[in-house]
């Protein structure tokens, strides 16, 4: 792509990113027309967010980002009406936009016309006519909680009743509410109610120093700390045209793969446990623990929190790291192979996993599934292979897919990705060059936007940001792949029985914190 070009007849400019990315000005009807063209060309909606630019040019702005085979396309739509700001909804074309649009309304008061008007993130934390992400809102304001009823979609029929689960659960897990409409044990409909862990991260980012943003990013969803902080750093480094040292990039990729390994190992154990096979949990937990201890020893943090910093990484692992890691990878590979044989040959586990929580490939396509869940439903999309950024451009990662879309498929993708991750880790260690692990990142000029996109273990993690004056951040939008994938669960459960829900839920293992923001 050249510096100036057009996308479907809309003027476009390059946007700083670790991937090929363009920004187009989609005013008026262009907004919907562009979305339609992108929909027709099978682009997937990555994220959608809004910003309050009234102080700059008296308007609100709504932005949407799509992934196309050529790279990232970001559309910007200016909304001049600041009294009742609105824009045409994209949910008809891209169902995953629905919740993002509802979140945008709760935070900024910009309404998507012709869409679901129920709140999404607001709950009772602030009044209906107050919009916390607007620039004139003081983040220190407190409002008394005023619980308001939420209109779940009712299901009527003979013998249909509702089971309400959460937000407080019997185990120690994140809060989310699930409303099942069931006949006997069969689920007719599931409706999710999320937003209980909304922390106002986007508001917190406003005015934060560019030197500290990666720390906040790492804390959006703790199990994806590496992906989020790398995405943040990638955006800032693209804006400031910083080139990280080769060694730092390798170490970052190593950290990202370790994060994937740790989560996959944990999930596979938990899947066994949810099927009543506690042996699986203990074995996979042990392997995960070995990895976490190696992380703590070599990188300074079990979950690699704050290891990735702007310009590089937070430390050079000691001399003995390579030998220790190669030994660990060998042990993990052996352990996972043994466990895989047990899972594959265990009639009880296979009976629970197969045909449970099936998400058919065409439905996954239609709903805009991303990441691991999409790959288990036959959609071969992985940023590491589709748009490899350094150092993945030299590694040729293999995209793992399954087509059955059930719990077994999602378990299988995890098992295969562990093998592939271990291969990548070995290759990364093999190609580890000498040199510094961090370079200086100059303060960015004000009003420069950029986007960082990293394939985390769940799927693509995106951070879009714009710089403010004096080394601050004007706005920052963080996107967790869970946003797209939470609705998949509502479809995967249909026709299954209630006691299989925890297993299906675990097979997706989506982030509450990441989606709630």
């Amino acid at each position, binding site marked *: 792509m050249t510096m100036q070009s057009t996308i479907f007849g809309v003027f476009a400019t390059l946007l700083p990113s670790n991937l090929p990315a363009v920004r187009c000005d989609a005013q008026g009807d262009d907004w919907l027309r562009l979305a339609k063209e992108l929909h027709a060309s099978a682009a997937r909606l990555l994220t959608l967010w809004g910003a309050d630019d009234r102080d700059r040019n008296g308007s609100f702005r709504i932005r949407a980002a799509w992934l196309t085979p050529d790279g990232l396309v970001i559309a910007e739509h200016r909304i001049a009406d600041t009294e009742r700001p609105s824009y045409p909804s994209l949910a008809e074309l891209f169902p995953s936009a629905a919740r993002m649009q509802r979140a945008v309304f709760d935070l900024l008061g910009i309404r998507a016309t012709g869409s679901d008007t129920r709140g999404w993130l607001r709950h009772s934390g602030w009044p209906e006519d107050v919009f916390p992400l607007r620039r004139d809102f003081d983040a220190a304001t407190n409002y008394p909680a005023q619980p308001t009823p939420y209109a779940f979609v009712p299901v009527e029929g003979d013998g249909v009743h509702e*089971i309400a689960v959460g937000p407080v659960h019997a185990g120690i897990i994140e809060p989310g509410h699930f409303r099942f409409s069931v006949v006997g*044990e069969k689920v007719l409909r599931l409706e999710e109610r999320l937003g209980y862990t909304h922390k106002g991260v986007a508001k917190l980012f406003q005015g934060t120093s560019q030197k500290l943003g990666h720390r906040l990013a790492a804390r959006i969803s703790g199990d994806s700390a590496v992906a989020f902080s790398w995405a943040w750093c990638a955006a800032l480094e693209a804006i400031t045209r910083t080139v990280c040292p080769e060694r730092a990039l390798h170490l970052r990729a190593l950290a990202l793969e370790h994060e994937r390994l740790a989560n996959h190992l944990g999930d596979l154990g938990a899947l066994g446990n949810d099927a009543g096979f506690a*042996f699986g949990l*203990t074995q996979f937990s042990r392997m995960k623990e070995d990895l976490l201890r190696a992380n703590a020893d070599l990188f300074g943090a079990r979950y690699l929190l704050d290891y990735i910093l702007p310009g590089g990484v937070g430390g050079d692992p000691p001399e003995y790291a390579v030998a220790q890691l190669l030994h660990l990878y060998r042990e993990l590979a052996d352990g996972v192979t043994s466990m895989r044989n047990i899972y594959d040959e265990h009639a009880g586990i296979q*009976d629970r996993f197969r045909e*449970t929580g099936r998400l058919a490939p065409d439905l996954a396509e239609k709903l805009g599934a991303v990441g691991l869940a999409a790959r288990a439903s036959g959609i071969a999309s992985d940023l590491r292979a589709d748009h490899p950024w350094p150092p993945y451009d030299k590694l040729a990662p293999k995209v793992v897919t399954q087509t059955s879309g059930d719990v077994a498929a999602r378990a299988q993708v995890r098992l295969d990705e562990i093998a592939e991750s271990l291969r990548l880790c070995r290759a990364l260690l093999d190609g580890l060059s000498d040199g510094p692990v961090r370079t200086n990142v100059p303060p960015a000029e004000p009003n420069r936007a950029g986007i960082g996109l990293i394939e985390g273990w769940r799927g693509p993690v995106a951070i879009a940001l714009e710089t403010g004056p004096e080394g601050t951040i004007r706005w920052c939008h963080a996107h967790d792949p869970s946003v797209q994938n939470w609705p998949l669960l509502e479809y995967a459960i249909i026709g299954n029985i209630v006691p299989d829900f*925890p297993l299906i839920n675990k097979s997706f293992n989506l982030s509450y914190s990441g989606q709630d923001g």
Partner: protein
Amino acid sequence: MKLISLVRQCAEVALAIGIAPLFAGWIAQCRAWMQNRSAPPLIQPYRMLHKLFHKDAALATDASPLFRATPYVLFGTMVLAAAIVPSIATDLPFARAADAIALIGLFATARVFTALAAMDIGTAFGTMGARREMMIGFLAEPALLMVLFNAFLLFGSTALPSLVDGYAAHRSGIDPSVIFAAVAFVMVLLAENARIPIDNPATHLELTMIHEAMLLEYSARHLALVEWASSLKLFNYACIGFALFLPWGIAIHGADGTGALLVAVAALIGKLVVAGAMLALIESVSAKLRLFRAPEYLATAFLLAVLGLLVHLLLGANTIA
């Protein structure tokens, strides 16, 4: 009624109440070892009971007296059951009052109370658990009856002590029908005691629970009694199994001096150790069945028990006693 048999009866019940949590602790320990975990101490269940008895009970606002009474009813029925099952001796005054069929009725009473108490609160989980428990119950009870009929056919009595006495009097080798019945019994035991593959006592996932879902609203002393009753139930089932299939060592009527009783206690502990390890093994190697496979599972148990009956009749054996 001789005083000595009353003393024996009381000793047996006291032993059952005291040893039941230990049996649960032993199974938990075996499970941990088999899964390569370091095990909780054997007395962990007692610690739990101690902790729970020292907490203040929280009750749901809508709880009726039924909800409050149920833990005591549960514990009472399980203690009564322990008095009927000949775990160490057969000369039990209480056992004459009720035969094995009444015993099943006793367990059913406990089940009905648990289910009613669970629905009493009106939470979705309680009702869900009660519904599932009743489904398991009405499938498990016929299977258990069939298992008992096997033994009844052999010894011509429906009282467990007479079965043990009869067995001791006629050591004539193992009747093949017993093997079918024993397998069926183990299957029923697992289902009735909320264990894998039917239920998972260790789960925290409220949607998958059967037994636990009914207890979610209980706390403190109520929960302690319910938990204790659960371990007593498991202990009673184990002892029914021993009486039916492994009656060696139980002090029989007429030969139950102090020495015989000590032997009986030692034999009981030995059998519990082995049975606990076997249970833990079964639980460790199997996954939980999908809920709707439970009917198939219990139908299999029923079928095996019926097969036992058929084998017995086909082999032309008459009752031994």
